[in-house]
């Protein structure tokens, strides 16, 4: 297949001057009522209840370039990582590439079929069996029935769902759901695969299996992979090249390690307020039964904390059905995406629909070494063993821990992340 005598690489995606413009504050609410609501809010000088989050009201009525002149060539067999902080334009780029929305200017030329997985299990129907869903999903991703037939056994084997393949997927656990969905996408005959954050779900073992499969897809099968993630360790593991997006432009293109370093410098750790209404969810059907609305670091202007103080966090949430007990845990990561640990689940109480709940809690960072961290918030029903995830926004809640102990030297990366309390000396008899 590969011809060593011709070192020339074959481009499969060519992006030229790609721009995507969104109108701020002018997006219709969908009904006349919502439009009137926006208008009334504007008249009173209040915040528009229908504005898409993350929009700066100073830009109200103006336009916003989600992508501002993107030029990129991707070659056959590459595994290209795309990183950048929230709002940098990653998702917009993938959406245009997957033909979900059209660009405002510029063009993308593509050689071959694109299979995109911007969300796990898109198009899966709860009432249909696993097998039916494989066909359905394959067809949605552009395969013919004959192509799915040929790969059916491989797909079922990879998904590890063999025993349940004729069971409706509504009886599947979320893990099985992810496995099945990924298995379909990974076995497509498409020349280009586009993945957005999809590996964030699923257990570690399966994640590793997926990454391995993706590497094979890119390396041996000569297909091209575009991978977006906030998890730097998966980027490191999978990608052969990496671009960093910032404010709709490519600010770096090349070596993976260098890209990660640049990305970290652009990451803003100072946010203390997160609006969660419109961000994506990691869990299947996320945020439908219970929805986190916002998260605030209380009493701070930036989320920088000394390891001697408590981090005070407030969340607002609402439910669409009654719950008797809801658990909350934090999944803590170091800034490069490597996991640090989870907090023990805490019951935040019962809830009824039609009301917004406010929950305030503290997190003690005294065990963390100096550095930048982020956490995901995971709200679930049941205990750790039998957890049904209700809401898990993809948002990384970032904070920085500084040492409050002046007698400590600067924290060294080689020490790890955890700063345990000193050993206790036992009295000698």
């Amino acid at each position, binding site marked *: 297949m590969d011809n060593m005598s011709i070192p020339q690489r074959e481009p499969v995606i060519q992006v030229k001057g790609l721009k995507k413009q969104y109108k701020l504050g002018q997006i*219709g609410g969908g009904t006349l009522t919502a439009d009137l609501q926006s208008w009334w809010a504007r008249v009173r000088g209040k915040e528009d209840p229908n504005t898409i989050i993350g929009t700066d009201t100073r830009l109200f009525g103006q336009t916003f370039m989600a992508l501002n002149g993107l030029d990129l060539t991707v070659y056959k067999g590459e595994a290209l990582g795309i990183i950048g902080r929230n709002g940098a334009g990653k998702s917009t780029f993938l959406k245009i590439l997957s033909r979900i929305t059209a660009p405002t200017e510029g063009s993308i030329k593509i050689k071959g079929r694109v299979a*995109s997985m911007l969300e796990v299990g898109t198009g899966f129907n709860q009432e*249909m069996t696993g097998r039916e869903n494989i066909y359905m999903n394959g067809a949605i991703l552009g395969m013919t029935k004959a192509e799915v037939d040929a790969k059916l056994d491989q797909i079922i084997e990879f998904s590890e769902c063999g025993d349940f393949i004729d069971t409706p997927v509504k009886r599947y656990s979320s893990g099985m759901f992810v496995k099945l969905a990924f298995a379909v996408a990974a076995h497509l005959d498409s020349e280009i695969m586009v993945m957005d954050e999809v590996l964030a779900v699923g257990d570690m073992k399966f994640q590793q299996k997926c990454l391995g499969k993706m590497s094979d897809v890119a390396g041996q099968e000569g297909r091209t992979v575009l991978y977006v993630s906030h998890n730097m360790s998966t980027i490191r593991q999978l990608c052969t090249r990496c671009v960093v997006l910032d404010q709709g432009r490519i600010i770096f293109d090349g070596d993976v390690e260098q890209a990660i370093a640049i990305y970290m410098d652009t990451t803003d750790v100072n946010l203390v307020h997160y609006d969660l209404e419109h961000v994506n969810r990691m869990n299947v059907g996320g945020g439908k039964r219970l929805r986190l609305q916002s998260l605030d670091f209380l009493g701070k202007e930036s989320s920088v904390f000394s390891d001697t103080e408590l981090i005070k966090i407030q969340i607002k949430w609402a439910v669409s059905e009654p719950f008797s007990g809801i658990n909350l845990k934090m999944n803590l990561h170091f800034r490069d995406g490597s996991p640090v640990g989870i907090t023990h689940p805490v019951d935040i109480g019962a809830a009824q629909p039609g009301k917004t709940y406010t929950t305030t809690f503290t997190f003690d960072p005294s065990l963390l070494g100096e550095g930048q961290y982020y956490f995901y918030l995971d709200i679930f029903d049941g205990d750790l063993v039998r957890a049904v995830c209700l809401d898990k926004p993809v948002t990384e809640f970032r904070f920085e821990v500084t040492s409050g102990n002046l007698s400590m030297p600067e924290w060294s990366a080689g020490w790890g992340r955890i700063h345990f309390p000193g050993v206790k000396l036992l009295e000698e008899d």
Partner: protein
Amino acid sequence: MDEKWTTEIKPKTGWFDIDLQELWQYRDLVVMFVKRNFTVLYKQTILGPAWILLNPLITTVIFNIVFGGIAGISTDGVPGFLFYMAGNTMWTFFSSCINNTANTFVTNAGVFGKVYFPRLTMPVSQVLTSLINFLIQFAMYACFWLYFAVQGEVHLTVWMWYLPIAVIQTMLLGLGVGIIVSSLTTKYRDLAIAVGFGVQLWMYATPVVYPLSSLWNQPKLSFIVSINPMTAPVEAFRLATLGTGSVSLGGILYSLIATAVLLIIGVVLFSRIEKTFMDTV
């Protein structure tokens, strides 16, 4: 350099940027959607697919009581039961084509926002589902028809050869109107509610519960009904199977042209909206 690009993604350009060939490539998906529509519709119902037959049966009986019995509207000398069932079978088909496609963008926003496939596959599979329902209901109609035919009350006419065209036309008209509505609902969802009333009103402007001939002494009403493109197929359906109905060549021609125009407007609008609707929904 000689490059063979297979796809080019550009800003939305003209109004006539329509890719019907691609729709054909995704025909397996259409079949899949049709299957899914049936699977999902009757899951966790007691009577299951029997509803396909029960629905028109109950409606026909009600029509028979209300319009035939209480209101005493003429049925052109045809047995009332068959008369209403004929009209209702055609109308149910048409209205289900509209109702099932009118919400295409809004109900599928989740899927459309995450993966690309030709969006037209959705409404097309919906009207095909309606077509299958129609054929089943038509078979039931045929059984009742046979009963009356044996007694010599009704007979087929030469218009029976026109039936397939009338059926396909009804489907395409429903598709056209449905996708026009679905394109417009991306901007204003109020329309989705209005469409329910609209279809109901439309039924009364179509000779479903009365024969077109009963309007001949009322020129204003007659005019409204005759500019309705659904009039010709319904009347033709009755003329073919019941032997009564007022169909003119001009009326048929008009109705076919109106269908074609609405369908083309629908497809153009739909193709235009599908490229950027994710930004507005």
